[in-house]
């Protein structure tokens, strides 16, 4: 507990304390400054888009990895974790190589809002896949056969039997992806260009405030990010638990 306090808790408390250094008014002013609002807005919008795409793509990838069979599946399966293992700054550089000004296919997304979504998709890829995969593996295929014998089409089986059983995992994975997305920094630094009021994400905004010695403003936006991440984790955790309540 002492170790945890020295390393994590006391410093976080310091952030909260600093954000309130100038009183509530100054806190409010800091987080409602136009640049802070723009940064928070683009971060939240991008994170929501990323969670939605992840829920779809992650479920699809998990499905293909569990139910399909093709040469090289084992390798693809291990590569899913690459975004966890790859340093974020390298992730940004990686995306820049293909989607930057020197793109071999001529797609230049660097310094656009789309680049934020792209970078966040890269770093959050494994969350939904890894949450859904084990559930899909454990899923009783006899349930699907029972539904088929009762006359359900493939589509109906997926929508009424498979999907409801995957939902808690999709929600849990989505929650983790969202929490990661709102705080992401390293992968955004190189590819987004950090243009204030345009492509500057909240974490990058905080960084710029620290650099320009506005620690109160940086701390205030940090507190907002912390709260968003915690609230999202709590809400998603609650939904995921609620959806699981009838399982054994």
């Amino acid at each position: 507990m002492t170790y945890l306090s020295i390393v994590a808790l006391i410093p976080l408390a310091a952030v909260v304390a600093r954000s309130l250094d100038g009183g509530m008014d100054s806190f409010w002013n800091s987080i409602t400054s136009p640049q802070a609002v723009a940064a928070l807005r683009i971060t939240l919008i991008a994170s929501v888009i990323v969670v939605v795409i992840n829920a779809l793509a992650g479920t699809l990838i998990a499905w293909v990895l569990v139910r399909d069979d093709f040469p090289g599946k084992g390798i693809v399966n291990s590569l899913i974790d690459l975004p966890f293992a790859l340093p974020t700054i390298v992730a940004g550089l990686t995306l820049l190589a293909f989607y930057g000004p020197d793109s071999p296919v001529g797609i230049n997304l660097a310094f656009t809002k789309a680049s934020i979504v792209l970078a966040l998709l890269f770093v959050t890829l494994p969350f939904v896949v890894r949450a859904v995969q084990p559930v899909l593996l454990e899923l009783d295929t006899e349930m699907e056969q029972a539904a088929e014998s009762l006359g359900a089409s493939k589509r109906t089986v997926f929508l009424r039997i498979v999907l409801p059983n995957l939902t808690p995992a999709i929600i849990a994975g989505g929650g983790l992806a969202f929490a990661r997305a709102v705080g992401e920094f390293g992968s955004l630094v190189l590819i987004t260009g950090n243009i204030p009021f345009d492509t500057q994400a909240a974490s990058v905004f905080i960084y710029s405030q620290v650099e320009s010695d506005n620690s109160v403003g940086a701390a205030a936006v940090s507190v907002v990010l912390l709260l968003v991440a915690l609230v999202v984790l709590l809400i998603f955790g609650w939904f995921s638990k609620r959806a699981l309540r009838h399982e054994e």
Partner: protein
Amino acid sequence: MSIVVDSVSKRFGNFVALNDVSLEVRDGSLTALLGPSGGGKSTLLRVIAGLEQPDSGKVLIAGEDATFKPPQRRNVGFVFQHYAAFKHMTVSKNVAFGLTIRKRPKEEIEARVDELLKLVHLDGFAHRYPSQLSGGQRQRMALARALAVQPRVLLLDEPFGALDATVRKELRLWLRRLHDEVHVTTVFVTHDQAEAMEVAEQIVVLNRGDIEQIGSPRDLYEKPSNEFVMRFVGPVSELAGQWIRPHDVEILVEPTGGAAEAQVDRIVHLGFEVRVELSLGDGESTWVQATRAKVEELELTEGQIVWLRPEAEPVSV
């Protein structure tokens, strides 16, 4: 509706699950597929349901060729060993599933679900989730779910296999009575000969992908077509080189022509029945199933020398 299986074969890699199997199930009958595990009985049931495709041969349901019909369009009810309960739905939603996806009117669905839950004695459990039911209750729910769509045939794969002994016995009798009420053509898979004998009108014995015998429970017990069936449907002893039911051996206390000499090793009282274990002159051991009255009448004791001979018209192969 009747079911006809015509020369069906099915392999899984090198494993032959069904080897040119043919079978007829009468409309409204109750048939058991009996055999050891790996004998092909579950595969046969799944081929009838359309959950497996045969490599060759045909399946006819109610006279029409159903071999290449997907399970959705066969109108069969299938009950799984491990219930396959939709665990994210309540009991009534589970039972209603087949009707809901057919978009039947709400009132009709409700009425039918009520009726079925009464039939399987689960009225009052409609709003529970499967995780709140016992194994036996879950299996009855699965049965109601299969019956809801008024299937042409009802197929059950080891339906009582995952339940404990007491519940098994109860559900056996109950299935028999249910069949008398609903009269739907029913085929169930079991590896338990007592279960097959007690419930079914017709038993199909399957072993290593082949049908060994088809017949009534009594036929199978009294006129087994080979040693496998004889051993599978009841106890056997060996006497003078032939297989015989242990209750068809007569114990004599005086030497008689044609009877084999034996020494009583052990007398085990099992209530009404007494198991007498003996060793024959050639050192082989055997056993005889006798009644308590018989053992008392003969005043048998351990170590005594007796003579054994088959009763008149024994069942043997």
